[in-house]
């Protein structure tokens, strides 16, 4: 008995029962909506606060998020190279609401990126970051509901994305000088 599979079927079995939930899941689950909203929030944070100290800390948060994003991508792709987990629709009887992605199911890259961006925004703006974390959680639930991931895939993705931001933020002695250089360069070209 695989608890991951049981939880997956518990969520996926609801597909088709309430049409409105299916529509909402489709609106959230696609590759464009949530990642673009997250990136947009990050772009907004870059320009937020005119006080120079606060603006600098916001812009540092954006650069830290971008470094963490790179780290997230490389960790997920390294795991994919070591371990391949078939998608739920390959091995199980699934009600699919999405197309059939071909890459490994574990860990979920879109969820890792969403949690990375949400955690990064949270470094600069707690309230907006919390809203984005809720959106990222909905994205994760929708991916399982739609039949493209197992719960463990999205949990691992969330942990990697969130963890990378916290690691990079903790390594301030490395990340802050990089962030300051990027901010100086951006200001030279009038980007903020």
């Amino acid at each position, binding site marked *: 008995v695989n608890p991951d599979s049981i939880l997956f079927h518990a969520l996926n079995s609801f597909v088709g029962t309430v049409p409105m939930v299916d529509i909402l899941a489709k*609106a959230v689950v*696609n590759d*464009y909506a949530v990642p673009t909203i997250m990136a947009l929030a990050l772009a907004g944070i870059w*320009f937020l*606060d005119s006080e120079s100290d606060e603006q600098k800390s916001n812009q540092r948060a954006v650069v830290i998020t971008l470094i963490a994003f790179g780290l997230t991508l490389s960790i997920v792709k390294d795991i994919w190279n070591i371990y391949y987990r078939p998608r739920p629709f390959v091995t199980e009887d699934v009600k699919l609401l999405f197309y059939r992605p071909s890459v490994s199911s574990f860990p979920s890259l879109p969820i890792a990126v969403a949690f990375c961006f949400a955690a990064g925004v949270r470094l600069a703006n707690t309230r907006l970051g919390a809203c984005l974390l809720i959106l990222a959680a909905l994205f994760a639930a929708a991916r399982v509901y739609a039949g493209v991931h197992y719960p463990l895939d999205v949990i691992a993705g969330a942990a990697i994305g969130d963890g990378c931001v916290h690691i990079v933020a903790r390594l301030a002695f490395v990340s802050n000088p990089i962030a300051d250089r990027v901010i100086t360069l951006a200001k030279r070209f009038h980007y903020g």
Partner: protein
Amino acid sequence: MDLLHFDSPTQAVNYFILCFTSILGIIQLSAARTNRHKYLWLEVRASALLGATLIATSFAWFFTTEEGIFIPGLAGGEMIALFMSAFLIAVPTSHLVAVLLARLRSSFPLARASRVKEPTL
């Protein structure tokens, strides 16, 4: 660059338009919140409203016109490249439009003054 194939050029163009327009919107929202005249196109409240409208309409347009949302389309790397290019173009565009509108307003001070309500005796 090896990752950028753009197998679906129409979708790439549509996604670029979504990013560009919504970034213009988010810049207006942020500038309105922090009163940064360098990027503000209109008065503070009007700019905030314009920003929110730009974001909402660009998302509504993309998700109602783009038919390939639920089929494999743009790869992650392509989306990042399009978003970054939209950002790089949207920031100077915002500044340029703000400067042009400010000049336009200063060129027609009478039009602005005529809108000011005459004090009643």
